[in-house]
């Protein structure tokens, strides 16, 4: 529960953003983010809330760890926690994940 997961902001509607996590689009709350975010920014998300706008130029090194782990098996402890962070974000329109 100390984990965060990075995703790319694709749309903003007030305090809610659509964020792309490895091709899955989910809703994320923005009232907790440290500075204003724009479409195209990457944010670090914890239990469905953005807590950090990741500075440009540091996005790739932030994503590295996650890119490796997201490819790991379903049984891997750390990979399961990362998937749980994505699951903590709201589905778009309450329906299935948009791909």
């Amino acid at each position, binding site marked *: *529960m100390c984990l965060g997961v990075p995703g790319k902001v694709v749309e903003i509607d007030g305090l809610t953003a659509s964020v792309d996590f490895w091709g899955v689009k989910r809703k994320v709350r923005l009232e907790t983010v440290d500075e204003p975010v724009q479409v195209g920014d990457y944010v670090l998300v914890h239990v469905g809330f953005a807590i950090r706008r990741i500075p440009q130029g540091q996005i790739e090194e932030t994503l590295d760890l996650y890119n490796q782990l997201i490819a790991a098996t379903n049984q891997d402890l750390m990979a399961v926690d990362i998937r749980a962070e994505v699951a903590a974000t709201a589905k778009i329109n309450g329906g299935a994940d948009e791909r």
Partner: protein
Amino acid sequence: MSVEAAVERLEFRDPHRARTLTRLLGALCREIGKPVSVMHVCGTHEQSIGRFGLRSLLPKELTVLMGPGCPVCVTDMPEVDEAVALARQGVVVATFGDMFRVPGTAFSLAEAKAEGADVRVIYSPFEALKLVQGTEKQVVFFATGFETTAVATAALVLAHPPENLSVLSAHKYIPPVMEIVAEMPQSHVQGFLAAGHAATITGWHIFERFVARHHIPVVTAGFEPLDILAALSELVRLIRDGEERVVNAYPRCVTPDGNRQAQKLLWEVFATEGGNWRGIAHVPNGNLRLRPKYSWADARCRFDIDLSSLLDEAPPRLTQECICGNIMAGIASPYDCRLFAKECTPQNPVGACMVSSEGNCKIWHEYGGHVVVRE
């Protein structure tokens, strides 16, 4: 891609840098000339250390301990009891998955559910809002986690949820427990790695007061294997030089003052209060509790929580032998526990550290603890 292939790619993505850092750590430890012991306070750090086998790369003089960095594990038994009592009183209790199977004095929420109580697992505090839609029933969000997660609970309260949703806060605040662990007479911790995402909220300036009081350095650290090795190198260098200060080795996410917007929400809703951390100690200012102005959302004010029926039940015999508290204080390792991987397993956990994916015992059970040194 297989796990092995993924690990291989990551661990050796920058073999030169990893080798340089481990060589540097070895040289620093030799210069110090006696054993060095440091502590991190984050389950995700332990996951990364365990998963990528970082202890196998460390010099043998350097011990890296996991401190009280698993929020589920430090949730005190009476806090679990409150949630269990509410569930047995007919309230719908929603909580995070890791909390579901953590034992209270007599029961876990999972056991309460097996007896017919309504307990739901949620991933985000905002999912609790969905649970209250279309029901008259009272729903209590049993909220656990450090300041990083408490920010989200604060946002939920500030969103003015319907009358039938309230919060039972077991949120904890990390900076005060670092003081307690540093002061333990059995503790030989010479430096701390601060948890990267908790520090994302609080900023790194907050640790300066700790350094001034305890005269040991603090380094904020990210979660990549190389982030951790780099932060450890910096920490051991500070120890060698006797430098008492804070160094930020995770500038991608941690700033001097942290996330002020999140702090505003956090401290609007919560105040610190003294309380027990399971198995460790009473921690002054270690608990986050709803301020009186939000008592309308505080389950402790809204309900008469009757713990008496739970206290009549005898706790399971094996819990007396659990040493989770000593493990989280850094004065014992999971391998010192007689129950580890025998009576206590992830399928049949005795202590909270074997339940949570951030618990030291669960992580060591999954990935191994001390590993054989590679040549």
